């Protein structure tokens, strides 16, 4: 086998790829957070819970309604988007003019309730969800056996992230979004229905988490706790990337997945902390974050 400095290169490439897979989830989640933050200036603490909800909905859809994975991949994010829209409309909007810390606390409360509810109903040992038949099996790469489903995770996440980026950065709708984030009132004055855009954006940002949840269901066990742990990591990623840019959120997500993958290989004990350490370093060197604009 190819080795350099005593490191097995094949194994290393395997770890890189695996990191990228994890990074795909980070990218989807931090992208969702960034979009919502952009327009509503709130950090959606319930984003993790919505990811969890995505996985559970996929499971429920399959077991109660016979909706298969592929359909779930479309239906579940929409359903979660609708829930999000209701949350925005009835819970978030009434406090939109208060200090943004309140909406953070509100969504934190929502996260607790959702997690508590699912623990209560389904317990916390996790539910099984099968990899769709079409994606069973894998491909033998020179350096590793790449399960087809994992490859699909990377591809689909890149497609979703990429198109979201394109819409926001390159289209007129995106310009409305960006401007609406800064001065919604004035945008209204220009004749743009900002509340509608806000609601839809919130729905979309949360739907991204739902999508990630469906993607995750077949590979991680579907459990109520799955959201809260990943969310804190995603927070660190958001701090590292800075909320300044949509592209930044995506890239940082992928990058951190890789960093974490490498750590699992070289020093697994630190794998849970490496992203936080990375955050510390970024805070010291570039407090606004890698892609953040100067304050």
């Amino acid at each position, binding site marked *: 086998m190819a080795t350099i400095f005593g490191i097995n290169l094949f194994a290393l490439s395997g770890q890189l790829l695996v990191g990228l897979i994890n990074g795909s989830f980070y990218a989807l989640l931090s992208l969702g957070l960034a979009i919502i*933050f952009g327009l509503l*200036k*709130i*950090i959606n603490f319930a984003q993790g819970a919505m990811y969890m909800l995505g996985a559970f909905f996929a499971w429920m859809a399959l077991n109660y309604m016979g909706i298969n994975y592929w359909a779930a991949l479309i239906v579940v994010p929409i359903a979660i988007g609708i829930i999000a829209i209701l949350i925005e409309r009835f*819970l978030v909007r*009434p*406090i939109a003019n*208060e200090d*943004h*810390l*309140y*909406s*953070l*606390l*509100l969504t*934190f*409360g*929502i*996260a*607790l*309730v*959702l*997690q*508590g*509810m699912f*623990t*209560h109903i389904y317990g916390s040992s996790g539910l099984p969800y099968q990899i769709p038949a079409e994606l069973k099996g894998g491909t033998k790469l020179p350096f590793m056996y790449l399960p087809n489903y994992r490859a699909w995770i990377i591809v689909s996440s890149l497609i979703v992230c990429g198109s979201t980026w394109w819409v926001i950065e390159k289209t007129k709708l995106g310009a409305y979004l960006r401007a609406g984030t800064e001065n919604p009132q004035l945008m209204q004055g220009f004749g743009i229905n900002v509340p509608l855009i806000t609601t839809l954006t919130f729905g979309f940002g949360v739907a991204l988490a739902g999508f990630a949840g469906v993607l995750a269901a077949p590979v991680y066990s579907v459990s109520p706790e799955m959201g*809260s742990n990943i969310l*804190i*990591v995603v*927070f*660190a990623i*958001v*701090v590292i990337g800075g*909320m300044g840019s949509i592209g930044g959120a995506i890239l940082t997500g992928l990058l951190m997945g890789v960093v974490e993958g490498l750590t699992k290989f070289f020093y697994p*004990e630190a794998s*849970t*902390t490496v992203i*936080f*350490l990375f*955050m*510390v370093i970024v*805070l*010291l060197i570039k*407090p606004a974050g890698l892609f953040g604009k100067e304050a």
Partner: protein
Amino acid sequence: MKINKLYVFLIALALVAPTVVYPVFLMKVLCFALFACAFNLLLGFVGLLSFGHAVFLGTGGYVTGYLMIETGISPELGVLAGTAAAAVIGAIYGKLAVKREGIYFAMVTLALAQLAFFFYLQAPFTGGEDGLQGVPRGALFGLIDLSDNSAMYYFVLAIFLFGFWLVHRTIHSPFGQILKAIRENEPRAVSLGYNVNDYKWAAFVISSALAGMAGSTKTLVFQLASLTDVHWHMSGEVVLMTLLGGMGTIFGPVVGAGVVVTIQNYMSGGELGNYIHIIMGVIFIVCVLAFRSGIVGEFQKLMKKNFG
């Protein structure tokens, strides 16, 4: 004058309370009340929402617990050491966290806290998920045996009163004035020549030291230091206590801590046990939507409306 009478009454109440109420429960309330007061110093008076304050509670607890077990020092020194350790961590974390503002600050503190959580989970001296068990309470100044619950209670009460006084004093000190100014208009404070980050940092250190003190004391009371105290749930709980009691009020955190601990105590025994997170979540939502001033804040508003 009126205020002073109120204080005297409350202290008198606190002195006789253990004869009526289970003292360990009271001590728990006092520990959390101190923790919440420390937290409120940052949130209510500097406007910084730390979502990782559990680290300091836990650090105080672990350090005190470790020293009490390994060296058998007397409890007041144990508490001091725990407090100092929390202050040191607070100094480091604070330096990093004050580089960001608002929501970012919350996220940075949460992430840093998670870092510490994993450290404590894996570090050998904390006993991992077992925690440090069987921490001796020791004898205060080598004289008063604290294994007696009522002696312990008065020790805890004294610590709490000291912490409470310090928070109160800090708010009404020259330093507190600057904090107020920073909260009101930060760029202006900068332009007047104040290094606002230094002031935020100092407040952060004071707050984390007091949180550590609460943790140290709690460890002595329960003879145990565990991961619970550094978990993000705990950070969330202290936010809840403060929010529920009334952030930015002096008594709010105390009331909030009392209510939350009581609810938890009540629920952990009953049928409602597994609803605990749901109920906490609902309280959060209700507080934010309809009850932002908290119990004490709303009460003050009411007083003002009717008598003011």
